């Protein structure tokens, strides 16, 4: 078994060897610039780009003309939100609606739009991480131009009711954006049925390479965007810049594999995740974060009471797991997603996100369970808080000498 065991597939995934295979010619002889129209190097690259576009479209039941290449889901989110807000802001209004547990790429972009004069309502989530549709309805206004709600949450894996949200938005003529970076290859996405206008995708969360993503832009009814990257007019003027052929080819192949293998893979990963949950559940004083039903199969997010996060991570150096979302884990502040869940009021706990994937094995899960039991036990033996809790002391009643 290779240590540390990788259980952080929501941060990023390895590129599937079959995807690498497909990319290699474009790192070698087929190196042309897809925008070169005067020779075969360019034509070959362009054909590969279009074939990949078709694969991305096929996974989500879209038309290939609805897929715009970007450098990743973060750029897709930026293009969708800024592009639609700038285009519709003057027409429909300057109010936007989103959720407190969205990815930073959405939240920080909305903050930027607030700086530019837009107003944003950030919805709370319920204790299970899901938004309340009544609260959502109540947040919509006549001047609401755009709604952004993610499909699957990156930290707790819960799946928001985007079909219902889409219907509500469509009925009121509001543009609806969905960040689906964590959902491709994990849940069925059918854009021929969903009332979704814009959807962000990432390759590197679905066994494709980093540095490539896509934005779905609905054609019927047509959604308009203001471009955010200007230049040679690539991607029908919506996103200029030389297309990274090998990365695009990789994303196409990764999404093709996702389409073919999703059903079997999800079932396998779900069994492993449930095994992990069962094992972790034998540890006292734990709490599973987020709804377990409306949830992607590969995610488990657990809080361990009375152990501190950094020391837990240090104890678990043989497990590559995340204590928050990868983008924010450089700072020690508790994850804003978990804070939004209004945790049961234990004063001290630390949370771990386990995300399983294509290459996770049963042996790895069993190893992880053993290690967790052992290390959480060791840290609790060392924890004065655990000692107090065992003695029946309510930590909320203690006068702490704050320093």
């Amino acid at each position, binding site marked *: 078994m290779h240590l540390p065991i*990788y259980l*952080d597939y929501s*941060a*990023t*995934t*390895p*590129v599937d060897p079959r995807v*690498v295979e497909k*990319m290699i010619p474009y*790192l*070698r*002889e087929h*190196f*042309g*610039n897809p*925008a*070169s*129209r*005067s*020779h075969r*190097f*360019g034509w070959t690259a362009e054909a590969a780009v279009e074939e990949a576009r078709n694969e991305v479209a096929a996974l989500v039941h879209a038309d290939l003309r609805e897929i715009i290449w970007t*450098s*990743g889901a*973060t*750029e897709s*989110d*930026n293009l969708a939100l800024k592009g639609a807000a700038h285009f519709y802001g003057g027409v429909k209004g300057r109010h936007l609606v989103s959720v407190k547990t969205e*990815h*930073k*790429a959405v939240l*920080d972009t909305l903050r*930027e739009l607030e700086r530019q004069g837009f107003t944003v309502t950030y919805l709370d989530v319920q204790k299970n991480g899901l938004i309340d549709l009544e609260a959502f309805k109540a947040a919509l206004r006549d001047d609401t131009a755009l709604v952004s709600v993610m499909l699957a949450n990156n930290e707790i894996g819960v799946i928001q009711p985007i079909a219902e949200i889409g219907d509500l938005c469509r009925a009121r003529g509001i543009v609806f954006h969905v960040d689906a970076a964590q959902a491709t290859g994990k849940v069925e996405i059918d854009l021929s049925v969903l009332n979704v206008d814009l959807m962000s995708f*990432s390759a590197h969360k679905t066994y494709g390479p*980093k*540095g490539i993503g896509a934005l779905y832009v609905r054609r019927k009814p047509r959604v308009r965007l203001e471009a*955010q*990257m*200007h*230049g*040679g*007019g*690539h991607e029908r003027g919506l996103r*200029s*810049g*030389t*297309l*990274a*052929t090998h*990365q695009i080819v990789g994303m196409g192949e990764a999404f093709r594999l996702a389409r073919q293998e999703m059903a079997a893979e999800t079932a396998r990963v779900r069994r492993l995740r449930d095994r992990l949950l069962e094992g972790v559940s034998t540890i006292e004083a734990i709490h599973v974060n987020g709804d377990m039903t409306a949830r992607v199969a590969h995610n488990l997010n657990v809080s361990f009471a009375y152990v501190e996060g950094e020391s837990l*991570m240090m104890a678990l*150096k043989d497990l*590559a*797991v*995340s*204590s928050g979302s*990868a*983008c*924010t884990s*450089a700072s020690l502040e508790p994850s804003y997603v978990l804070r939004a869940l209004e945790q049961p009021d234990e004063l001290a706990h630390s949370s771990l996100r386990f995300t399983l994937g294509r290459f996770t094995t049963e042996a790895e899960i069993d190893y992880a369970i053993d290690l967790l039991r052992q290390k959480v036990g060791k840290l609790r033996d060392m924890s004065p808080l655990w000692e107090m809790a065992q003695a029946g002391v309510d930590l909320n009643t203690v006068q702490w000498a704050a320093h």
Partner: protein
Amino acid sequence: MPLPVYFDYNATTPMDARVRAAMSPYLETRFGNASSRHEYGRAARRAMDLARQQVAAAVGAHPTEIIFVSGGSEANNLFLKGAAAAFGKGGGAVAFSAIEHPCVLNAARQLARQEWRLIELPVDATGRVTRAGIDDALARQKPGLWSVMLANNETGVVQDVAAFAHSVQERGGGWFHSDAAQVLGKIPIDFRALNQAGVHALTLSAHKVYGPKGAAALVVDKRLDLIPLISGGGQEGGLRAGTENVAAIVGFGVAAELAASRLKELSARLSRLRARLEAGLLPLGATIFGIDAPRLPNTSYFSFAGVEGETLLARLDRAGFAVASGAACSSANPNPSHALMAMGVPEALARGALRVSLGAESNEEQIDAFLPALKAELAGLKNLTALQDESRRA
């Protein structure tokens, strides 16, 4: 069918085998997200740190001055829009040369919508941005933002950027950017010296120097205030969000190091090859654009009176030579090259423009095969034109 001879290195370059070898572990085994705190993440972070040092060293910058982005277009957009946004609304005037890459021109045009005044700096007949244009802009408008490319992608003409930036610096200031995407690995770049002269930002691109597509950098003087184009997880010091493209960045680092280490040898070789090419072009009646100006050693941009460029390109492709009509990204554009129009080249001649850009795998045999092929295609086209003229007269 064998692949054609590649003469379009300014559009993109084949990846060097060393670059590819350095990248491949970061796809499959060392695949971590550089923001993750576990070993997979830290390994990716270390690799990026090294790449940052390599890119910085190649252009005489400090690693903390490198912002990795997805491409040259993004770097140029980031400078113009990011610096403009930091000024607040309607910050004043933005000056840029008439021959900038479309990503600079179109990003600047966007600024016009936010009440920025645009000043296009003229070029002379040789393709050089004129001193008079700079002086005039300084005298009339005092632009807050400047963008003048270090060398043009079509003509290869090298601009006197340090001197221009120095003048700007001396006379009121303004943030000065230069697109150096075509320059890395062809002529030496010293960001320290440029920065002292008054250049605050440089655009570099990996895929123009035998690195991968998907990685580029904006080299910035940290006094320059930028509002990010892409918001999110706070990567690249908060200036460029999004999971880092580790493999491509690793490739960029190796490519930059390679570019600097073989610059002298490669440039000398390419300039000899180009001389051989142009010695053959002139007797065929070619007008070579920018030939009287200092140029990048690998680029030759030329036209034949009365010959339609697109037709000739197609015939050359069939004959086994991949050449370009101008900038790759605008080759779908039916208009003649904006750079040539700015130089005052007659439209008919501009429409016939062909660009041969040489690179690491170019050699004498290729040049020696190209010249007779070109001659034959030209002759063929002239016969065809004569035939058409005859039939029209008949």
